[in-house]
């Protein structure tokens, strides 16, 4: 067991991990972070996505130990006080149905809007193309993202 520490949603956390523990499992089982989900275990579906040092990554493909000294942001971190304009936009558009893809989708869209305040529709589709959603047909999700900074 090795003790690692990293910033999780603005708070420094310590946790003991084995080399073969996956970041997804450690977040969910040891740190109470339930928003990233298991969908495929191969990086193909995006359900496990969080922001690592500001970049969207698949936690099912990252060993927990690699998070040592890094900074992680999840949906729980976004929802602490006020919701972000992106989250409010999703609510206004009734974007999500079963909601299982929502956390991963939200983190990816958060990264996109950080880099590009007013993405074009094609750029939105490109950015979220690694986040699978079986319910919505994507249109309400894309519209919500486009709507965030539309003035």
């Amino acid at each position: 067991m090795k003790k690692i520490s990293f910033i999780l949603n603005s708070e420094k956390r310590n946790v003991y991990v084995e080399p073969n523990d996956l970041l997804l499992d450690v977040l969910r089982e040891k740190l109470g972070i339930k928003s990233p989900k298991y969908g495929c275990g191969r990086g193909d579906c995006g359900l496990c996505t969080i922001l690592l040092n500001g970049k969207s990554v698949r936690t099912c493909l990252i060993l927990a130990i690699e998070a040592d000294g890094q900074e992680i942001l999840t949906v729980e971190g976004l929802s602490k006080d006020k919701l972000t304009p992106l989250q409010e936009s999703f609510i206004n558009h009734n974007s999500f149905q079963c909601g299982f893809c929502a956390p991963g989708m939200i983190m990816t869209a958060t990264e996109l809007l950080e880099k590009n305040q007013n993405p074009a529709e094609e750029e939105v589709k490109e950015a979220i193309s690694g986040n699978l959603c079986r319910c919505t047909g994507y249109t309400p999700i894309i519209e919500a993202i486009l709507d965030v900074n539309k003035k």
Partner: protein
Amino acid sequence: MAIAHEFEYFKPESVEGVIELLLKYKGKARLLAGGTDLVVRIKDGLEFPEAVIDIKGLTELGKLEFKNNRLFIGSLVTFNDLIDSKIVEEKFSLLWESSKTIASMGIRNRATIVGNICSAVPSLDSGPVLLVYEANVVVKGSEGERIIPILDWFLGPRKTALNADEFVYEITISLPEKKNGGSYVKLGRYNGEDLAQVGLGILALEGNEYRLAFCAVGPLPCRAKKIEALLNGKSLTDSLIEEAKNLVPEEISPITDVRATKEYRLHMAKIMFERGIKAAVERLNGKGPAYGKKLI
């Protein structure tokens, strides 16, 4: 889900540290950068290393630099790093275009081009592009530094020229001296992320020089020497393209699998060649579709 296989984890801070560990574990260690290939294989029971050596402790490996007309791509440089780089987009547009076809944001933020060539899967998208750029792979090992031309790098499916005590330090690409245009054409089953069923990288250089390389249609990615021999020195005409298309079956050996039949792959390879080479030449002449626009 969980990984049952147990292994040691190391994060050395120097090149020497990496080599020391490689020597200690005699081929039973695996290097970890992005992990998007290695972690899946450990989960699937296809790799069972005794140790995982995380090279992310060597910050020098994150270098992406253009110096003396050469592009230096450290082994921690991700595909998104390449896409975000203005230098790559403007001076190595073919590399930029092929990087954009790979996977999706969350994978490209981690997956490295060095990791891609080390995996040496037959369908790797960086393969054709590095082959036509005639890149060099700089490796460091217990015997010192070696430079392996990319043309000598791929030995077979998942087999490279890297020795067990070596690791890739960086890839270098010399900026082609002549003006050039390129295209990377990739066959997938739909618009979303896919492994190439056929991949084709083309570089057209001023003075009627052409370089082509395929991936996913043979055990290794390789240059299409016969087509190059036919085209070199000639300016592109419709009849020349037709003649070259007829050589495609001699350059590739596609198979049938769950992704595509060999007949479709062969058919598409010809179409991709035709559209790809036209686009490459148009781009060489400052025209043609913008890099990143899909040709098929």
